[in-house]
C-alpha cells in the first residue's frame, strides 16, 4: 500500500492568522474559510461520497491549514494549497477504507469503446436526486477522470494548476478531459 501522503507539502507563505471573533474562527482565517469552504466541502463530498465523512474531512483540512497558515506566501495560491491538502487527506482516508474493504475498480476500457448516448439525456426532478446521480456517475468513473472533472469544474483553477494538483502537464489534462467528459456523460445516463 502507498504511504500516507504529507498533506501540507510546500505551503505558500504569508502572515499567520490573528485575533478571534469571540469563539468563532480567527478573523482572517474565517475569511479563508468563507472564500474556499464551499469548494473544499464539495470536493471532499464528491471524492468520499459521504456527507458526514466530508464534514469531518473539511474540519481536518482547515485545521491543518490553520496550523500551517503562517507559511502562506500569498492569497492567490491558497485555493490550490487547500485543494492539495484535501486531495491528500481524502486519498489517505480512501486508502485506509480500501484496506478494510473489498472494492472494484472501474474498467477504463469500457469508456474508451462505448459510443456517445444517442437517446434523450437524463431528466432530474429534484436537487437531491441530481446530487445522488452525480455521485453515482462519478463513482462509476476511473478515479483519475472524476478528479479531473471536479478540479476543472472550479473556474478559479487553470489547467496548469489542475495539472500541478494531479501531477501531470496541462496538455495531459486537456487530453484526458475529453475522455473524462465522454465517460461521465455515459455514466450519468446510466443513473436514470
Amino acid at each position, binding site marked *: 500500500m502507498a504511504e500516507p501522503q504529507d498533506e501540507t507539502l510546500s505551503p505558500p507563505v504569508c502572515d499567520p492568522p*490573528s485575533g478571534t471573533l469571540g469563539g468563532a474562527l480567527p478573523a482572517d482565517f474565517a475569511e479563508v474559510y468563507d472564500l474556499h469552504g*464551499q469548494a473544499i466541502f464539495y470536493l471532499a463530498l464528491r471524492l468520499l461520497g459521504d456527507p458526514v465523512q466530508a464534514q469531518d474531512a473539511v474540519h481536518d483540512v482547515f485545521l491543518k491549514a490553520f496550523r500551517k497558515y503562517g507559511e502562506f506566501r500569498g492569497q492567490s495560491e491558497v485555493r490550490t494549497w487547500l485543494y492539495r491538502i484535501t486531495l491528500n487527506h481524502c486519498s489517505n482516508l480512501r486508502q485506509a477504507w480500501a484496506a478494510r474493504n473489498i472494492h472494484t475498480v472501474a474498467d477504463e476500457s469500457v469508456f474508451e469503446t462505448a459510443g456517445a448516448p444517442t437517446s434523450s439525456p*437524463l431528466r432530474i426532478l429534484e436537487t437531491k436526486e441530481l446530487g445522488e446521480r452525480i455521485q453515482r456517475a462519478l463513482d462509476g468513473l476511473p478515479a483519475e477522470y472524476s478528479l479531473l472533472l471536479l478540479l476543472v469544474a472550479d473556474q478559479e483553477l487553470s489547467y496548469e494548476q489542475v495539472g500541478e494538483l494531479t501531477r501531470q502537464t496541462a496538455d495531459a489534462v486537456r487530453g484526458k478531459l475529453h475522455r473524462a467528459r465522454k465517460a461521465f456523460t455515459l455514466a450519468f445516463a446510466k443513473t436514470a
Partner: protein
Amino acid sequence: MDPQSRLRHEHSDDFAAASRHGMVSQNGPLEFLHPEDLLRHDRSRTVPPAAIAQRLAASIDQDPTLIQSRQPWWKRLLGRGAP
C-alpha cells in the same frame, strides 16, 4: 458536442443561477454543455453545514498546540526575546 449528448436538468427553479454555470435553457430542461458545468451547478447548490465552522473554531480554541498560532505575529516576536 452532439446536442443529444448534453446533460439536461429538467427542474429549474433558479434560472438566473443556472445561466451562470454554463447552461442553456429554452424554458424547459436545463442543458449542461459539459459535465464540469453540471458539477459547477451542483456545487453552487451544495452548502457546507454551519456546524463545520463551529466545530473548527472550537478545535482551534481548544487545541493547546494552536495557542501560539492564535497570537499576533508581533506578540510572538516580542515574546521570543522576553526572559
